[in-house]
């Protein structure tokens, strides 16, 4: 009996040691600040320890205001690329983001320093007034932005967001392909993290809380 108990305690010690080592190793990755991406559990979010600063870009929001690099400064921004004629992925994602925003608003720090931006890759059909009607439905704080192809390509390229608009002459319902990720930019306008689908409001808000706390810790 004693022998079994001894073996068990040795095994438990080994397990505990392994867990500690794994913890130290993960903490090291956080501290290293190299270019390696850290994959948090469930792969909901990929966090970049060395966030890439974005360079100048210019788009227009649903109230015909300029949306550029300065618009990102001082706020955490959640960016999603899509188009309003999208029946499945876009409304699903925007509904999730609206719930995520509600969750974040309940945190002590609140939602004052966050913004959600829907970037239409289909400026041909998505005018400012259409975008306004669209984003307002999900959350009146959401921004709808777009621009010409070169302007959209600039920002999309910096984030590695793939999209393709397959317009054919005389075709009313042309297909639009777009990335399904939600990009997280930090208040210094750096590409900080990316959420990958399937998107979940609770997962996004919980992960964001951790990211914001980590960043606040880094800043002090």
């Amino acid at each position, binding site marked *: 009996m004693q022998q079994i108990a001894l073996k068990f305690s040795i095994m438990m010690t080994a397990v505990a040691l392994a867990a500690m080592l794994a913890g130290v190793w993960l903490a090291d990755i956080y501290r290293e600040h190299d270019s390696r991406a850290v994959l948090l559990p469930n792969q909901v979010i990929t966090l970049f320890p060395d966030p890439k600063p974005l360079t100048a870009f210019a788009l227009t929001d649903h109230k015909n205001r300029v949306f550029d690099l300065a618009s990102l400064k001082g706020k955490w921004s959640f960016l999603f690329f899509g188009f309003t004629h999208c029946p499945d992925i876009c409304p*699903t994602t925007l509904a999730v983001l609206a719930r995520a925003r509600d969750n974040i608003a309940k945190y002590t720090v609140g939602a004052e320093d966050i913004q959600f931006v829907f970037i239409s890759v289909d400026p041909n059909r998505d005018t400012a007034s259409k975008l306004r009607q669209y984003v307002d439905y999900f959350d009146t704080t959401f921004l709808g932005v777009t621009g010409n192809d070169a302007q959209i390509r600039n920002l999309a390229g910096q984030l590695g967001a793939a999209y393709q608009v397959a317009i054919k002459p005389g075709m009313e319902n042309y297909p639009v392909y777009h990335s399904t990720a939600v990009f997280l930019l930090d208040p210094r306008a750096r590409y900080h993290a990316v959420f990958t689908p399937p998107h979940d409001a609770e997962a996004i808000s919980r992960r964001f809380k951790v990211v914001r706390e980590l960043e606040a810790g880094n800043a002090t």
Partner: protein
Amino acid sequence: MRWRHPVFVCLILAPTLVPAASEEGGVSVRDAWIRETPPGMTMMAGYMALRNNTSRSQVLVAASSPGFATVMIHRTIVKDGMARMEHASQIELTPNASLIFAPGGYHLMLMSPIRPLRAGDPVVINLEFRGGLVLPVAFEVRK
């Protein structure tokens, strides 16, 4: 996370709830709903859990609705990092197989609603199977 999804939760709970919403010829449909869209939008999507309770294959070949100009069976797939929609010309349900139409996967693409639809509105969509079986399904618009 995936299991948190309402569709999956409904599937798990389904056997304990009321009988199937629609059932004919051994094909049953549960949790049929349409996502409400912002006003003025002409593209909507319908979701459901489809089950073939028979001992032979059932092939879904088309869908139509008096509430929409066009209904198509689509599937969202992610390829080269981009979401795209593919038209599914038919879907085979093997004996006792279930198929879930859910956000990010199979869905009924509903184009040009005849009148504006808001949460709570009922809409009938007819599912057409090979061999002539037509199953009218009551969908509910949900926010």
